[in-house]
């Protein structure tokens, strides 16, 4: 049997987060982080403001089942959640375990039932500020024993790496979006829609050589090696939809 020390686990998970350079990889790394701490679900969301009524629009990345989010929002449970206001007012992680009566009484019965139904008796919500001053919350939930203080400390440290990764992913996406000119973006969009260079040239009143030049520029700017990768990357980065 082999054991992993806390510092080894912290270093491994922080390392995985550090190399995640896309939103998909970031979500995967977040999922592995949750699993390493015995949680089934991980979510990164914008901290709810006083005006917010629904959870879904706040979610940035989440592994939560769609049915959970739907029922949460149908029941307008965001305002009933005891942590919603604390996420704005404090940076201290909020931990809960529904088997602890002092924690359970803070949650309305309908919310408790929903959490139990989805196997989220235990969890932690960790508020943090992003690079652009946005208030975010890393949220983990699942069925496990109450978190110990050393686990909370370890998780809080790893979350700092997760935040760095999220900031880097956002910067990448932002720079990719502004990297392409309006014409290049248009040419990539038409290509994804199945148009040939000649057809795009007719649509945009350009020669097919000019269309190909725009495509070549877009390939270079988005650091791609061929048009397949360019189209796939443009879709992933939501440059075209």
């Amino acid at each position, binding site marked *: 049997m082999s054991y992993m020390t806390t510092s080894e686990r912290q270093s491994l998970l922080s390392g995985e987060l550090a190399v995640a350079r896309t939103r998909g990889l970031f979500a995967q790394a977040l999922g592995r982080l949750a699993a390493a701490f015995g949680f089934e679900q991980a979510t990164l969301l914008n901290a709810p403001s006083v005006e917010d009524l629904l959870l879904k629009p706040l979610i940035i990345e989440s592994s939560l089942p769609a049915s959970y989010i739907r029922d949460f929002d149908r029941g307008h449970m965001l305002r009933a959640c005891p942590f919603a206001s604390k996420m704005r007012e404090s940076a201290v992680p909020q931990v809960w375990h529904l088997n602890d009566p002092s924690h359970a009484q803070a949650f309305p019965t309908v919310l408790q039932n929903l959490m139990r139904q989805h196997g989220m008796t235990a969890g932690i919500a960790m508020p943090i500020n992003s690079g652009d001053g946005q208030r975010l919350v890393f949220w983990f939930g699942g069925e496990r024993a109450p978190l110990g203080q050393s686990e909370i400390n370890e998780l809080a440290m790893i979350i700092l790496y997760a935040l760095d990764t999220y900031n880097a992913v956002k910067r990448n996406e932002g720079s990719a979006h502004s990297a392409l000119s309006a014409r290049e973006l248009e040419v990539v969009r038409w290509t994804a829609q199945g148009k040939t260079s000649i057809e795009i040239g007719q649509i945009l009143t350009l020669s097919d050589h000019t269309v190909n030049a725009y495509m070549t520029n877009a390939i270079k700017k988005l650091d791609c090696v061929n048009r397949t*990768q360019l*189209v796939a990357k443009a879709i992933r980065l939501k440059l075209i939809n």
Partner: protein
Amino acid sequence: MPLRFEQPAIEHRQQSRAHIGITDAEALTMFAAYRLFGFWRMDLGTGHFFASEDVHQIFDLPYSEGPVNLTELMSRIHEEDRLLIAETFEQASLYRVGFHYVYRVDNRLGGYKMVRSVGQFRDDASGGGIAGITYEFVEKLHIVGFEDGGAPL
């Protein structure tokens, strides 16, 4: 390659079929039977996606031999699966590797159906790009179906 899969890629061993008498065509016909099962190729040089009739039907797109409108096709995929699929194509075209995934596609009835795609990288000699299959993933237990038009011996 940064994208990681929990499932190892397993090479199927070549199986002897000559003594059984089943041809490649028969094996493929049986594999594709009783479900929508289509073929596709994404051309590396143009970035265009070409697909057979069943792929169009799976994604509820009008059939054409010309390049498929990928933007429209992707819009039929569950939004939680869409980004990972785009990223898979990206990585496959960059690292020249094969892949498979199971994902959710709008069933046009207010829900989603499960679909599986398998892709493999092809070099320029055989038509550069990623070629693959896509089929509805409808493995059900305790189900029996027969072909139409059978007649007793």
